[in-house]
């Protein structure tokens, strides 16, 4: 294990990178969505609009910070902090390369035996930010947004947990580094159907957990102004957005790590450059990028669920499908292999 100051330094660098990633994810999202809608998008500030996120950040900082008169002040200030802290913390257990590949140090913050549960736990605490923010603002729109989000996130956590079961059963460990090293797809082709269903169930649940389209009911503009975020302004508003985008990045990294081989590249690239599939950071970054692009693509393609459709889909379909995938995988492991 690395000395403590190295871990601290790595955590600091990771936080800065994630926040930079958040800023440029907004740029990517706006440019891509514009393309999908036959527009051009922000391209004036800097080359191809690359300085736009920085301009937006400066604008955000200097905006007036309004706290509603009857808001619960302590909780109102605490909520964005909770959101962003737990969104950042969740990334810590995700490995980005083989051991000792970062200038002789390990390319992860901590190597936890329960890394998988750790990510699930920290993301489930992140809900409190949304939830308390909407309540503390003392506004009907905010409260409705946070009630929706809590009900949604509790419901889809079931799908998340059950679809992860297939991976845990195949890998036999909760350590994310070991899960990547085992590579769940290489164990047996008989496990592929269960894994494929689990992958999609997990993907859908993760989309709902980060409230991406089509599950963005907590902040449905047409009905709720901006949901839980309605009364927030200035930096607190930016913190909530930061948490949401960092959550998207973490979800992409988590999907890659569990189902798509994590930091490992495909085997055929070794024929081009020996050892290329072991390069740290490159492959994880590429996978995160592709998954994020798909998230943005969904935003341009799908319509929002109605509330009862959301609940029925979560409890009647997703829950059963994820459970079925877990049962199938378990049966194959127990009776065939």
């Amino acid at each position, binding site marked *: 294990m690395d000395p403590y100051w190295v871990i601290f330094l790595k955590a600091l660098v990771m936080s800065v990178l994630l926040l930079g990633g958040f800023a440029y994810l907004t740029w990517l999202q706006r440019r891509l969505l514009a393309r999908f809608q036959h527009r051009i998008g922000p391209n004036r500030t800097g080359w191809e609009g690359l300085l736009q996120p920085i301009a937006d950040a400066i604008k955000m900082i200097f905006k007036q910070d309004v706290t509603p008169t009857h808001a619960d002040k302590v909780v109102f200030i605490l909520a964005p902090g909770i959101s962003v802290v737990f969104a950042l913390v969740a990334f810590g257990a995700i490995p980005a390369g083989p051991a000792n590949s970062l200038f002789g140090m390990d390319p992860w913050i901590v190597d936890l035996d329960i890394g998988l549960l750790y990510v699930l736990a920290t993301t489930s605490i992140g809900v409190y930010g949304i939830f308390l923010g909407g*309540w503390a603002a003392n506004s009907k729109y905010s409260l409705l947004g946070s*009630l929706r989000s*809590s009900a949604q996130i509790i419901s889809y956590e079931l799908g998340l947990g059950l679809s992860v079961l297939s991976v845990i059963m195949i890998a036999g460990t909760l350590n994310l580094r070991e899960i990547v090293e085992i590579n769940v797809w290489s164990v047996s082709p008989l496990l592929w159907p269960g894994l494929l269903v689990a992958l999609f169930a997990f993907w859908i649940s993760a989309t709902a957990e980060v409230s991406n389209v089509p599950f963005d009911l907590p902040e449905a503009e047409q009905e709720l102004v901006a949901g839980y975020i309605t009364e927030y302004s200035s930096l607190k508003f930016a913190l909530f957005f930061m948490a949401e985008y960092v959550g998207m990045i973490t979800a992409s990294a988590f999907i890659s790590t569990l189902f798509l081989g994590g930091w490992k590249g495909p085997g055929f690239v070794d024929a081009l450059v020996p050892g290329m599939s072991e390069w740290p950071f490159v492959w994880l970054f590429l996978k995160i990028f592709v998954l994020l692009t798909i998230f943005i693509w969904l935003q341009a393609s799908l319509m929002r669920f109605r509330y009862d459709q959301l609940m029925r889909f979560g409890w009647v379909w997703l829950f059963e499908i994820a459970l079925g995938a877990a049962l199938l995988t378990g049966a194959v492991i127990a009776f065939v292999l």
Partner: protein
Amino acid sequence: MLAFAAIATVMLIGAIGVVTLRQPVHAALSLVGTLLALAIAYVQLNAGFLAAIQVIVYAGAIMVLFLFVIMLLALDGEAPAPSLTWLRPAAWGAGALALVAVLAVLARDPIGPASPAALLEVFAGSGAEGVADQLFGPMVLSFHLVGVLLLTGIVAAVGLVQRRAGQAAEARARAGRAGADAPDAPPLPGREPVEV
């Protein structure tokens, strides 16, 4: 030891907050604080698995549900005091009794600090395997019985709600028939619209 003192302080402050704060949401929040501090205490004991489960189940699911209900009912701190006058002395009495019992047990059978080696052995690999061995080995029957118990609770709750929903639907249907104009279409059986 210093770390434990800090965690214990946070836990105690949280626990006192739960019973003294007027605003139900604040009380629930300090309970969340207590639960998170307890999770950190577990991490200190190398019991990472217990800590993760503590956070996922209690802080991440049960307390979110608590808060959901509090917010849905829009409870504020100004509810009239309960009229059960015997409740307060009875609570003090029960608390005192429990304290005496704990102290008596401690006095009869003092517990020394656990040896680090024993702890490490129990919680090897963050404790996931140790807990699994116990749960699915010697404890498997009680584990399943607890599952049945929880299922019973759920079935009972759903039964209660269904009966009330059925009565409400009947009342609505009657009201519809009594009206002079074209009655509303009767609601589909067993499918209440979710109103959130």
